[in-house]
């Protein structure tokens, strides 16, 4: 077959044009990412010092102080979210993977997909009316519940998808050895999918750790160390918000520093998760 020299020249040209368009698109997509990173680092680095991690915020007018309480608060909120969100999420994921072919399974899956699209502020309002109004106070508990609700669909779907990736032949191998189905599911299927599920859970933790809107009227904020889970709770994202909209130069600096710390934490979580996936795949 010979289509003539002109055709081949045209094909090569088309190839070049399309390829350079793709490169251009990639560069455009990278610009915001790189500039956010650069901007946050350059503005935030000045506010990072030991006090930032250990001290309480100082009142307006006094310089110095830190966000120790917000750091601990974010850890606490994420911990509560994990406590409430991960176990039911993983169990629901197992249910969907094992018995999800039913009509009810389809409904659960659909609900999970819809839920992961619900704006986070809506979840905040929901938990406000459910928990904050009934207990008559803002609390870490309410914040944790709000974040857990956001995590739930992510954890559920990740668990389901990863369980479905485990070859059916392993289940058959286990059943063929006279192992009851529930034990085959837990000891073989879930065990095989576990590293992947752990990574998925880490990513969903990273996502909710940066959420602000659902915390605004659940955990609210706190200028002091909180005790227990029924206290108002400071968190990094909410602190970034309140400090950034304030008129004080010193608070702006702190907001940038908090943004940097949050960004780095999430970046580390993400990179670790991805690294784990890669080493796991290579080990196969």
């Amino acid at each position, binding site marked *: 077959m010979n289509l003539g020299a002109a055709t081949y020249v045209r094909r090569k040209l088309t190839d070049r044009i399309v390829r350079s368009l793709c490169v251009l698109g990639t560069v455009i997509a990278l610009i915001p990412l790189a500039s956010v990173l650069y901007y946050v680092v350059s503005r935030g680095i000045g506010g990072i010092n030991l006090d930032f991690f250990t001290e309480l915020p100082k009142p307006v007018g006094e310089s110095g102080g830190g966000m120790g309480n917000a750091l601990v608060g974010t850890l606490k909120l994420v911990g509560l979210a994990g406590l409430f969100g991960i176990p039911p999420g993983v169990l629901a994921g197992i249910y969907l993977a094992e018995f999800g072919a039913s009509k009810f399974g389809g409904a659960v899956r659909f609900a999970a997909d819809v839920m992961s699209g619900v704006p986070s502020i809506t979840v905040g309002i929901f938990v406000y009316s459910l928990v904050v109004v009934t207990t008559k106070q803002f609390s870490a508990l309410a914040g944790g519940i709000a974040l857990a609700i956001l995590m739930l669909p992510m954890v559920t779907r990740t668990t389901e998808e990863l369980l479905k990736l485990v070859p059916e032949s*392993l289940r058959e*191998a286990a*059943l063929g*050895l*006279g*192992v009851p189905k529930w034990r085959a599911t837990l*000891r073989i299927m879930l065990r095989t999918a576990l590293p992947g599920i752990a990574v998925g859970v880490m990513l969903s933790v990273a996502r909710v750790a940066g959420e602000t809107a659902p915390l605004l009227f659940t955990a609210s904020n706190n200028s002091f160390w909180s005790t227990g889970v029924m206290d108002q709770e400071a968190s990094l994202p909410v602190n970034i918000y309140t400090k950034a909209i304030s008129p004080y130069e010193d608070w702006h600096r702190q907001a940038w520093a908090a943004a940097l710390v949050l960004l780095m934490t999430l970046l580390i979580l993400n990179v670790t998760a991805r690294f784990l996936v890669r080493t796991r795949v290579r080990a*196969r």
Partner: protein
Amino acid sequence: MNMDFSTSLAKKAAQKKVDDAEPKPAETRPTPESAKPTTMEPAAATSPEIASRPRWDEVSVSQITAKMRAEDLHASFGSSEVIKGISLPIAEKLVTAIIGPSGCGKSTFLRCLNRMHEVVSGATAKGKVWLDQQDIYERDVDPVRVRGRVGMVFQKPNPFPTMSIRDNVLAGLRLNGVKLKDPDGQVESALRAVALWDEVKDRLAKAGTSLSGGQQQRLCIARALALEPEVLLMDEPCSALDPIATARVEELIHELREAYTIVIVTHNMQQAARVANFTAFFYLGQLIEYNRTQVIFTRPKEQRTEDYITGRFG
């Protein structure tokens, strides 16, 4: 071991002009030493367990000492019936091969023998399958217990990827909550039984999936044997293996039949001829012919069997 049975047996049959198409009961048939087919494994004849019974190569299908027996077995996936009423005895401590073209129901039949068929959603089976004196399809029979007595080896080697070689061998026992008295000894004897011990004894802690395909399949056989099943079902155990690994697994089958009742599904007719004492030919969900292997491959009664084994279809 790897001799071509169909031709060597055909020659012998032609020389002796023994008509075996309608095998008579062994007692009534004159069996001069010279008329005995001597091509199959002499070891089988000298083995004490087998010597105590009539020699399998003198036994007609109707006289089989059955370890298992299917009776009018039907199996379906949803509304499509893939096994249409099969009755078949499985000879104790011998090898039974099931051959037939793709989609004839061989694997489904095999999976009915340890109630693995119903594991697939929408799959149902009815009829009777006797294991000794027990119909395994009776309502109060727990399929999980049946599978402990009737082990299975699958088409693709499927060691558990999260477990070491050692843990794979013990997996069946551990997952069933059996207290292990001598785990090391059990690992060694199971691995020796499949002739894998010498190859892996220095790396028992390595992942089961780090082995080659043939080794993985032998590991899976060891895993099944560790449960000390009475019957071993093998669903095309060599189809994912190269000829050398296949030869090893076939040798293994020869050794295992001293202690186990084996049913093997195979696409490879030479393999059936090499390893099986009895062969069943399935076609479109029905049993077309069932007889001693050398009869099936040399003097089949049915035209369809002959067409299949001579490669005219399938």
